[in-house]
């Protein structure tokens, strides 16, 4: 039973452009000044969440499997969202994206916290009006370089390699882009990575950071060398890895259509299409976009050699064709 002083403690963070105020400490998040607009994160029980949820007779708005567990996101009649992550945890996000209640099956537990700090938080960010790109990102002296790609394309392995070369982790998997009136700025995700434990594609955690938990096939790692503030995007590389491809970095003359496959959205939020189109059209028009292609077995170091000059000023010319 927590004491009186402990109950009163709050932790202010920032992730995916979203100010957070948690009633319990969370790993890998940027601490931030308290914000009136923060999303309040609280622990509660599953029966309490079930009582609070406005309920829906309809189909889930998103039904999938994440890390081997079924995941359902349901929209309530009152606009709130019930997120059920297997037997691990249930989350309830209020309609105004100001309150998030978490009911884990067991505390402490790593799997539910990893899910909270990834899918639940980026979903809240998206629902609050921030646009998202499925990309890892690393910050260097030239700004942020993002590596957009589908699952298994090597986003994380490339980011690990670039952090080892002196970059700061900006995001492992999701790049947040709040609405902008002037220069586009990206907001960092948690300083956490899911590093694959595969010798042929990644050298393991090593000096990258501290392993929080070992999951099947990958380590959940906190990365001390991580970005502490929003930053301008210096370049976006679209990762294409597959048989028949050669290792190459090629500057594109992009349109919004090149980026849209890597954006995130929920099918029921079709009203957001116009906003997403406008923002990513601005990205395509203003930010250098590259195609980074590689054969399946290309080591991350060889990709990093090509993109390193995009990230660090004075590291020679980008080796783009």
């Amino acid at each position: 039973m927590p004491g009186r002083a402990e109950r009163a403690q709050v932790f202010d963070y920032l992730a995916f452009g979203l100010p957070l105020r948690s009633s319990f400490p969370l790993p890998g998040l940027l601490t931030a000044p308290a914000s009136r607009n923060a999303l309040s994160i609280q622990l509660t029980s599953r029966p309490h969440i079930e009582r609070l949820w406005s309920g829906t007779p309809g189909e889930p708005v998103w039904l999938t499997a994440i890390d081997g567990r079924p995941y359902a996101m349901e929209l309530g009649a009152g606009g709130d969202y019930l997120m059920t992550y297997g037997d691990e945890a249930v989350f309830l996000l209020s309609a105004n994206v100001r309150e998030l209640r978490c009911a884990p099956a067991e505390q402490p537990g790593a799997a539910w916290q990893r899910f909270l700090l990834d899918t639940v938080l980026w979903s809240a960010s998206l629902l609050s009006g921030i646009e998202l790109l499925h990309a890892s990102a690393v910050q260097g002296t030239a700004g942020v370089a993002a590596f957009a790609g589908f699952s298994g394309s090597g986003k994380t392995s490339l980011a690990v390699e670039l952090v080892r070369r002196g970059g700061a982790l900006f995001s492992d998997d999701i790049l947040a882009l709040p609405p902008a009136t002037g220069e586009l700025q990206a907001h960092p995700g948690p300083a956490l990575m899911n590093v694959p434990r595969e010798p042929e594609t990644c050298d393991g955690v090593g000096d990258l950071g501290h392993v929080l938990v070992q999951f099947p096939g990958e380590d959940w790692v906190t990365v001390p060398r991580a970005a502490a503030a929003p930053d301008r995007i210096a370049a976006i590389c679209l990762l294409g890895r597959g048989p028949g491809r050669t290792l190459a970095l090629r500057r594109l003359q992009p349109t919004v259509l090149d980026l849209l496959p890597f954006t995130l959205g929920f099918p029921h939020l079709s009203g957001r299409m116009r906003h997403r189109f406008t923002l990513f059209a601005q990205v395509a028009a203003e930010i250098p976009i590259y195609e980074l292609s590689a054969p399946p077995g290309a080591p991350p170091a060889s990709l990093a050699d090509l993109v390193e000059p995009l990230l660090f000023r004075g590291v020679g010319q980008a080796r783009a064709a």
Partner: protein
Amino acid sequence: MASDRGRRTSELLDLRARIPEHVVHRDFPGETVVLNVETGQYHGLNATAGRMLTALEGADSIGSAVIALAREFGMPRTEIERDLSGLCLALADRGLVELGDARAG
């Protein structure tokens, strides 16, 4: 609108092509991308068609867009009329423009 298909070029020239609220577009070097928010479909126009769309957007009738484009491209007016009419009908079929009375609003 399917009925527009039967319209003669001379009738079309008196109409105005308006881009409806549910359509958003952006020019890029070499291509204009158009999104129909109602259908969720994206459409690509080459540079010439993209320029024609911009001309239509700023003109009070399709006929006056023809005059401006013929001057800009240095092409015979009849050729522009044919191409622009075809484009207007194709865009209208996809809900990307609405053809209406040039005198209205």
